[in-house]
């Protein structure tokens, strides 16, 4: 695992609660807002299961800690999107909170319903980008959520030991977190 320079992280009084919201004018229309919200709730819950940080949807976009939106091409942050495939999304280090997805991709929440061969799993990308929002940079471990690439029509949503160790070093462990031996074997195979 790796961190951004200076190991930035969100600083809040415990219990830490971060809010998120979707940009009202920058959403996709072929996936229902309910399905989008569900995918993000699952992605956030994976991180909150291992660290003492909770996430909840904000009442208003402007006041949210994490601002999520779909954008095309040059959208003003110096990191232009490039059309179908290539770059899928990006997010900024703590405590910036910006989380941008490429509107040119075909985002999917269910591959049985979405037949496009270039469909990208929204929950997988959301889980990865939340890692950046929280302070993790890219990992060299292929199985880790924080590995930088993801093939189309691939679902990769479970945190691996590399992700868990990295994020817990920043925020501590969720007291309810239980060690999963399966993560250890994943780490071993990653090293191999």
């Amino acid at each position: 695992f790796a961190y951004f320079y200076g190991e930035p992280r969100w600083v809040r009084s415990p219990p830490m609660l971060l809010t998120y919201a979707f940009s009202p004018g920058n959403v996709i229309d072929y996936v229902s807002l309910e399905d989008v919200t569900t995918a993000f709730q699952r992605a956030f819950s994976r991180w909150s299961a291992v660290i003492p940080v909770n996430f909840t949807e904000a009442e208003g976009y402007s006041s949210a800690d994490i601002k999520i939106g779909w954008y095309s091409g040059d959208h003003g942050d110096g990191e232009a999107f490039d059309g179908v495939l290539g770059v899928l999304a990006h997010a900024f280090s703590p405590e910036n909170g910006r989380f941008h997805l490429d509107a040119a991709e075909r985002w999917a929440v269910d591959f049985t319903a979405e037949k496009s061969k270039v469909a990208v799993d929204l929950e997988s990308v959301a889980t990865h980008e939340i890692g950046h929002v929280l302070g993790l940079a890219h990992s060299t471990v292929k199985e880790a959520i924080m590995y930088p690439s993801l093939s189309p029509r691939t679902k990769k949503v479970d945190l691996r030991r590399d992700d868990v160790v990295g994020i817990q070093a920043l925020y501590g462990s969720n007291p309810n977190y239980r060690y999963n031996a399966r993560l250890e074997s994943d780490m071993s195979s990653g090293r191999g």
Partner: protein
Amino acid sequence: SDYPDSSTQLIVDVLPNNTWHSLMRFLDAGKGNRVDGMAELKRYFRRFGYLSVPLENNSFNDFFDDEFEAALRSYQKNLGLSETGKLDHDTMTVIVSPRCGVSDFPGAGGNHALKTTRH
């Protein structure tokens, strides 16, 4: 073994101007080679933090030079690939795969942070 795997073929299918055949011209290129289009690959490496902007002319050339080889080895190490220093099949397959836009060394060109601390 040179035939692309399914994920690479998928990308080729939707990027007709960037076919696997066209990418094959880079396959196994090594230091000292000059390959048309290498500058584009250098821009890719620049975007993700492995190369800095060239001082002369502010543009990349098509030569596989020492700097590109070092960048390639760093890329291979960071992406869990064999450090061959060549544009082998596994490396090209990863290069054409979709990915996150955050630099692997944030700050080398991006504005996310200055650099990473790796553990």
